[in-house]
């Protein structure tokens, strides 16, 4: 078999698997509730509380709160998929023997994990669109200052949290364990990453904790180009490095069964 034919077959499986996963999601849309509906719901609640407020202190003082929250909640959608939906999905595939079936037929790791990354990109994009529309229409949030730079931060953020999702799936013994661990992590992220109470009102220790976790950096890298501060390369570097580290560790621990 020529290397070109092998590559072509890998690409074909990657695309078919991605398309299949999208169809499976459409057939069981309830699985999207956590990824989409929950972040939007929290956005609406926070919009009700802080809708007309501005940041008072810190580096973002003067910025309208909703202009922070809209890109921040795009980050939260990405984090929801990465900490809960993706690991539970993969762990339950492993538990049921779906991964075993795929592996025995010669599906490669690259095709399997690549399809999950592509699906996450697509699902999170729909979530981002809904959040943007709701934020702009209901709370007068601004449009992104630089959509191309936001898109770059979005893609690196999706890469980072897909890798974290894979890591959680690799380490969790069962789908239930993946769900418990993922939800716990998600809750911590929600409170310390500028995705619930505004960062300038958090105690210092929570801000510090947030900076040690990935979502804060994803949020800042999305907010900066959104509010016209341009690409924050330092933050993007941290997000990419976290993604690469998670990828390396999870490939080491990835289990088909």
């Amino acid at each position: 078999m020529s290397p070109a034919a092998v590559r072509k077959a890998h690409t074909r499986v990657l695309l078919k698997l991605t398309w299949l996963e999208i169809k499976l999601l459409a057939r069981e849309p309830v699985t999207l509730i956590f990824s989409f509906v929950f972040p939007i719901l929290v956005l609406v609640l926070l919009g009700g509380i802080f809708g007309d407020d501005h940041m008072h202190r810190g580096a973002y003082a003067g910025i309208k709160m909703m202009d922070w929250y809209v890109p921040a909640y795009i980050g939260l959608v990405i984090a929801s998929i990465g900490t809960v939906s993706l690991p539970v999905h993969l762990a339950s595939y492993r538990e049921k023997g779906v991964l075993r079936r795929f592996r025995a037929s010669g599906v490669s790791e690259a095709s399997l994990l690549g399809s999950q990354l592509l699906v996450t990109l697509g699902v999170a994009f729909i979530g981002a669109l809904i959040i943007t529309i709701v934020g702009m229409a209901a709370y007068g949030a601004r449009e992104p200052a630089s959509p191309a730079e936001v898109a770059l931060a979005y893609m690196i953020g999706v890469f980072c949290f897909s890798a974290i999702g894979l890591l959680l799936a690799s380490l969790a013994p069962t789908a239930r364990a993946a769900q418990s661990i993922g939800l716990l992590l998600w809750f911590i992220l929600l409170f310390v990453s500028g995705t619930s109470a505004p960062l300038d009102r958090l105690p210092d220790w929570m801000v510090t904790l947030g900076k040690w976790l990935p979502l804060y950096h994803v949020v800042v890298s999305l907010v900066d180009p959104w509010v016209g501060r341009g690409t924050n390369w330092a933050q993007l570097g941290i997000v990419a490095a976290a993604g690469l580290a998670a990828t390396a560790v999870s490939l080491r621990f990835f289990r088909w069964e």
Partner: protein
Amino acid sequence: MPPVIVAQHLHKRYKDFVAVHDASLDVHEGEIFGLLGSNGAGKTTTVEILQGLRKADGGEVRVLGLDPASQGRELRWRIGSQLQQSALPDHVRVGEALDLFSAIIPGGHDWRHVMEQWGLADKRKDSFHGLSGGQKQRLFIALALVNDPELVFLDEMTTGLDPAARRVAWDLVRQVRDMGTTVVLVTHFMEEAERLCDRIAVMDAGRIVAEGSPSSLVAEHAEFVTVAFSTDAPDVSWLEDVPHADKVTRHGARVEVRGGGPVLAHVGAALVAHGITPSDLHVERPTLEDVFLTLTGHAMEE
């Protein structure tokens, strides 16, 4: 022609349980090779090692000339596999699964033919979770065969099939063999092994205790026959003195005499001499089940 599978001195242990102990076997091109044994005998572990899904702790394996442990992907593109425990996503449809699996190998194959062959054409748009046990099983066999493999592993393929479907499956497996695919069949059904397999390895407690064609195994390991008849004569203990008779047992009117080769003629002569002429006098040949019992010392549990 070198064997399709050569495995020598395979060992596999899980913590303190030895699953496979010094197992060696050869599978030749174009045969249906059966691995027969009870649950827990080590059959599945053995075929998983052969497919590169598990690493043996010791021993040598070559499958289609490849080392399954280090050339697993390359190997799995040339073989088909129906696993005992596996699943598909609940909402995937039969046609989608076949389409996906047919795309894995460079070149790819048309999956509509196997879909029809295994009676799944009218289930094409049905979801996996809505299929019956037998339909799932047929789908997994079809997936194993979708890429026209050189070698296919079928692990308990007729589990969950009703007797009629089982016979259809046997015919189809023979067709698969006749088309040139070598078949390795893992089973605990005596009848399946006896009717379908060209050669069998009997596995017990992790060891391969015998290997050969069903008829040669019977000839080698079960030399006795059983002569049976019914009578109302109260005492037939004199049958124990008949030449070549080993053991006489009686359940009500039915008498069984177990013994070597010519025992039937001697029993017949002795009966006539005692004035007993039963109309149902007949000989029962040993079956693979008797061989299994002789070799392992226990019956196959279902």
